[in-house]
């Protein structure tokens, strides 16, 4: 940069003398000092803070950077929830696409799955966030979202005049939520699970507006999670405790299913209505159901192509 004389025209902006301050510090020296000070602050601060400052999108991280992020997250959670914390970033297994099937003729609407999901996935207890919503529908009307009631509370279920449709994330093959995200904080993994990078989410809630199933939930307040109820088996893209101001959703219990386990809702269901497995494996339970039963998906006219199927097993 060519050094210009002090009476240059650039000094007329706001009447400030940009070249020479009264003390005689040149602009170059000033900017150099600021740059050195910033570098010094960044060099002096903790590696966690540095990592947060230069944070990259999760999918751009190298494996060593993933380990750094996991270590940083772990130290944070250990402070809040105690020593017993394991965080994994298990990637998708090749040759696996997860699918889910739910037997509407068996579901009795007991909401065990809702609370098992809350327990497994560390949802905020208050303000309450639940990833599964069980809709009560009238048998006379069939699947009708207009008259569906999620707040039913009789003494005993099932009610003879109603049936129950639990709705969580449908894990669409063409998800609208990922397409509208302005920062790319949510995407579909190779095994079909739609995940969110909670560090990258800016909380604009476009995805919630785009989701036709109401499957995404926003942390309006600081999530409360009692230490005693904390599930320490975590996945970076799944059930790790979320900060305020980010969106969260069902991940097919990514921390369990990528380790080969069934999701928590499958394991708690007292009537065995929930089925989970690999859609590519022709011998999996879900593949058998797709072959042998009549299945349907919710709002198929929207071409979201969910991997969450409903069927009548009778």
């Amino acid at each position: 940069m060519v050094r210009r004389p002090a009476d240059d025209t650039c000094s007329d902006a706001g009447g400030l003398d940009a070249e020479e301050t009264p003390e005689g510090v040149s602009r170059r020296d000033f900017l150099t000092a600021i740059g050195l000070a910033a570098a010094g602050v960044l060099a002096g601060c903790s590696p966690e803070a540095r990592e947060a400052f230069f944070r990259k999108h999760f999918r751009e991280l190298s494996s060593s950077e993933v380990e750094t992020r996991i270590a940083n997250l772990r130290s944070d959670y250990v402070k809040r929830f105690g020593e017993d914390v394991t965080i994994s970033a298990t990637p998708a297994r090749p040759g696996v696409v997860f699918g889910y099937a739910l037997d509407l003729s068996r579901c009795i609407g007991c909401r065990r799955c809702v609370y098992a999901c809350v327990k497994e996935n560390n949802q905020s207890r208050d303000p309450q966030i639940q990833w599964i919503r069980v809709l009560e529908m009238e048998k006379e009307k069939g699947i009708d979202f207009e008259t569906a009631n999620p707040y039913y509370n009789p003494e005993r279920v099932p009610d003879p005049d109603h049936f129950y449709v639990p709705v969580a994330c449908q894990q669409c093959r063409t998800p609208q939520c990922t397409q509208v995200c302005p920062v790319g904080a949510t995407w579909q993994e190779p095994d079909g699970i739609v995940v969110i990078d909670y560090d990258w989410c800016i909380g604009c809630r476009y995805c919630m507006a785009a989701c036709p199933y109401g499957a995404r939930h926003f942390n309006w307040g600081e999530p409360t999670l009692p230490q005693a109820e904390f599930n320490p088996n975590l996945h970076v893209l799944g059930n790790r405790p979320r900060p305020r101001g980010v969106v969260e959703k069902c991940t097919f219990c990514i921390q369990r299913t990528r380790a080969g386990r069934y999701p928590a809702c499958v394991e708690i269901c007292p009537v065995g209505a929930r089925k989970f497995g690999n859609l590519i494996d022709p011998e999996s339970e879900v593949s058998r159901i797709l072959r042998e039963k009549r299945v349907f998906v919710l709002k198929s006219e929207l071409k979201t192509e969910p991997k969450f199927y409903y069927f009548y097993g009778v």
Partner: protein
Amino acid sequence: MSDIRPPQQPETENGEDGGGTEEEFSLARSNALIPLLIMSAVTVLAIVLVIVRAKPVIPPEGSVANKAFGPADFPLVFAKEEALAAPGEPTGSAPMVFPVPAPPFSEGIFPCMQCHEGIPPNPERRTLEAMHSDIVLHHDEEHRWCLDCHDTNNRDQLHLANGAPVPFTESYKLCGQCHGTQYRDWRSGIHGKRTGYWDGSKRYFLCVHCHNPHSPRFAALQPLPPPVRPQFLRPAAAAVAASGDASGARHEQEEGNGAQAR
């Protein structure tokens, strides 16, 4: 002038004519309008007041409508889950081997021969009075009786229709004699419940873990509480106080559904 008057109001100007009619006519019209205007103004005011002054319907503190329940409120539900779901490490699944947990016998009832050892079998169909009076057969009771499934001589096992003995841990074979489609679906994992690994070792649940064999219709359950309606979602603190109320206690009592007397 007169020909521009609206003809549909002749009663106001009956028998009148001349310049005075114009003023009288408009006066009459406004007279009719005034009460209408007043009435509509009052109505609008009333509606506005109702809207402005209405208080939101807030359920009392700690009532089920605005209490955010968590899994900790239903310890028995989830204690049961953990007790049952304890599979081994993932292994390759061998076909047609069905690892099942122990059948859900009533406390202290098995082995049956500890009592039946010295009792001579009585194959006569009758109402049981001395023992097992708590069992009410509600499963094609018109055609069947105890010894159609339980073995007459060895009470520790069951028998098929052809007389072949079946242990209690393989009772699905007995059920499958009549419920063939359900048996087929159960073997391929469509009917019934499995826990464990989707790609490995699974724990199959027997028919009798969910269906009481003497009364197989799945018993109704009490649902866990509904979600908090969005207008009652509050930030923490306020709702923490209200906990451990009657609803949580009710659930603890009724969780014995799957394990009644068999």
